[in-house]
């Protein structure tokens, strides 16, 4: 029963991933931790293994749709491990709670910026000041 729940969350994670260009770990990790009883570390590591084929299939589909700048993606991917190393070292030097709150604040700022951009693009040529 819990395997079925984990598989359904896997499908949902793949869907969110394909739709929004993220790995899907945001749902894979809780699926593995809650339904399959994995520890947090094992859930995150196992989620990474699931992400590799899922991201490959998503890239294959997006290549067909013409939405991948391959070279840019490879440059970003190739440099990320350097960032990961910096991140791991830093996370052992700074209190975790401060990091979580800092990133939460940044995420909200970026979210606000995305919303502002989206609303600006959707504005009609004749601005409506009635509100």
């Amino acid at each position: 029963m819990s395997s079925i729940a984990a598989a359904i969350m896997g499908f949902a994670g793949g869907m969110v991933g394909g739709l929004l260009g993220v790995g899907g770990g945001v749902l894979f990790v809780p699926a593995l931790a809650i339904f399959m009883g994995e520890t947090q570390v094992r859930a995150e590591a196992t989620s990474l293994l699931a992400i590799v084929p899922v991201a490959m299939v998503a890239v294959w589909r997006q290549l067909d749709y013409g939405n991948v700048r391959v070279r840019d993606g490879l440059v970003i991917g190739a440099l990320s491990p350097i960032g990961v190393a910096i991140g791991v070292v830093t996370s052992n030097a700074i209190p975790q709670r401060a990091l979580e709150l800092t990133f939460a604040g940044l995420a909200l700022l970026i979210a606000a910026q995305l919303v502002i951009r989206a609303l600006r693009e959707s504005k009609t040529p004749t601005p409506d000041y009635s509100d």
Partner: protein
Amino acid sequence: MPTGDTAATSRMLKLAAIGTAGGIFSGLLGVGGGSVIVPLLIVWLGYGAREATGTSMMAIVVIAAVAVTLQAFYGNVDPPNAALVGIPAIGGAIAGTALQQRIPERSIALLFAGLLVVIAAKLIIS
């Protein structure tokens, strides 16, 4: 042309910064790189939302492959459970990318903003 070179260099530096930033947050918090890469490609490099998500996926293939190789050395990876969530997820990814082509880019950006709010809430609550 010097201006072209400068633009290309500045673009490359931005890509490098996005890659490093995505990696830093993954290493710090275990947050997926995509949640950093997609919005930075949109806000910083002027990518359309669809292109940002497709290109982010390309980067994620590399990032996840490197990270899972390292985790495997520590014996933290559980392949049967990865298959349990990953195989249905492949179907989900095909459905998700197909759905993405049918909705406006603005909606994709707004959905992404929603995802960031969820991530922020999780970090604050944790």
